[in-house]
């Protein structure tokens, strides 16, 4: 059987295996196995299969039908009880925090670090008794702050293993992350913007290590927080912040 054409492209027979798999049109398990082997051993075939399936799903979406109204309840009745605690148990955590730390503690700490500078082109962050400089790779971002009075605020994670810097001006906001610990595959770091008296608004999902994020100008008193969220980010914070800064 010719698996591929001489030029490396998929043969007609290959495509017919892929369309058979996409449509579930095989007559024998052996045909399915051949198709699955092709897909698992040939990235080009895998891409074509994805394309055929996306094509069918476009038609499926265009011909969707609302299921019976009672089906949702039937299905939810089959679900096991929640496997993990609710992301946020506000009352419980509130009590814990009240017992262990003064209210607004981090707000005061963040505010104490504020420095007003003009036109920063290099920012240094003291971390682990050493200066970590964010310069060349951030210059483009920092250019949005050019000619502005800039409020610079730094913070570190509790054990000093990562740091974050906020640069806020009337022209824009830049957040720099430094040496954030590697995160497992199930979680990501995520930034939040919280206007004074407002609710957390989800912002960028950011990587571990060094990174930078550009945000719109923020009103004075706005908090920028970093939390650990399920991979891909959340619509609302599910954990306490690992770092927070007030701009």
């Amino acid at each position, binding site marked *: 059987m010719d698996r591929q054409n001489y030029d490396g492209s998929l043969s007609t027979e290959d495509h017919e295996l892929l*369309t058979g798999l*996409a449509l*579930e049109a095989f007559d024998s398990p052996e045909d399915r196995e051949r198709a699955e082997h092709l897909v698992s051993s040939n990235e080009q075939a895998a891409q074509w299969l*994805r*394309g*055929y*399936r*996306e*094509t*069918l*799903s476009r*038609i*499926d*979406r*265009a*011909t*969707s*039908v*609302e*299921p*019976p109204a009672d*089906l949702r309840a039937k299905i939810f009745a*089959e679900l096991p009880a*929640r*496997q993990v605690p609710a992301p*946020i148990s*506000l009352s419980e955590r*509130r009590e814990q*925090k009240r017992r262990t730390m003064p209210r607004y503690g*981090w707000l005061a*700490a963040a505010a104490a*670090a504020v*420095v007003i500078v*003009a*036109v*920063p*082109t*290099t920012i240094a*962050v003291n971390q682990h008794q050493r200066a970590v400089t964010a310069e060349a790779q951030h210059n483009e971002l920092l250019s949005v702050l050019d000619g502005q009075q800039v409020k610079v605020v*730094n*913070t*570190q994670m*509790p054990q000093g293993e990562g740091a974050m810097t906020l640069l806020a001006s009337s022209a824009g906001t830049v957040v720099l992350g430094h040496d954030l610990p590697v995160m497992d595959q199930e979680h990501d770091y995520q930034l939040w913007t919280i206007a004074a*008296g*407002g*609710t957390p*608004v*989800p*912002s960028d999902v950011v990587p571990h290590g060094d990174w930078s994020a550009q945000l719109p100008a923020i009103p004075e008193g706005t908090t920028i*927080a970093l939390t650990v969220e*399920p991979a*891909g*980010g*959340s619509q*609302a*914070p599910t954990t*306490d*912040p*690992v770092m927070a*800064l007030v701009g």
Partner: protein
Amino acid sequence: MNRADTEHSNTGSGDILEFMDRAPSGTGTRAEVGSGTTEYFSGLCQRVAQGDHQAFDSLYTELSPIVYGISVRLIRNPSQASEVTQEVMLEIWNNANSYSASTGSIYAWASTIARRRAIDRIRSEEARTQREDRNFTVDREVAQIDDELMAQVDSEQVRNCLGTLTDKEKQTVIDTYYGGSTYAQVAERRQMPLATVKSRIRSALQRLKTCLEVA
């Protein structure tokens, strides 16, 4: 060059409670991970994998009409289509952590599961009943089914693209996509060589893929 060397501050474990008190779960919007984006669905699946019923409710709202549409079109029995939809949604619940945006859209993922489950159902029914009562393509003209299919399509682009198929291509697509038939069943029913059936389905899907601008 101005340089801003700032003192390091420590803040440590932040207290999100102050703003969480004012932040009910589920509020807020995001530009980067807006509803309907790949990232949004990846995030929903991660939450479902952790047992988040609210996230599953969102997935149900988005996917169940597609799943039910496939099921009822193939099975043609609303009660059995509901059963299959339930099976598919529970499979999505149980396997949410296996969804990867890198392998396609959430819709294609759900459609693939639904099509496989629905076809398993009709083929097991076929084996049991010889399929006499649901062999609709024998009893009805392709043109009639085509009209029904077209009437269901609520996307002008999809309708136009289906309209680009030749009559013979459309016949084989209807038999497989709409009827759930295998290649050999189509060949037998239409009295045409198996190779011809495969060729027409391949050309039809490739034409649709190009027309719908699927990468």
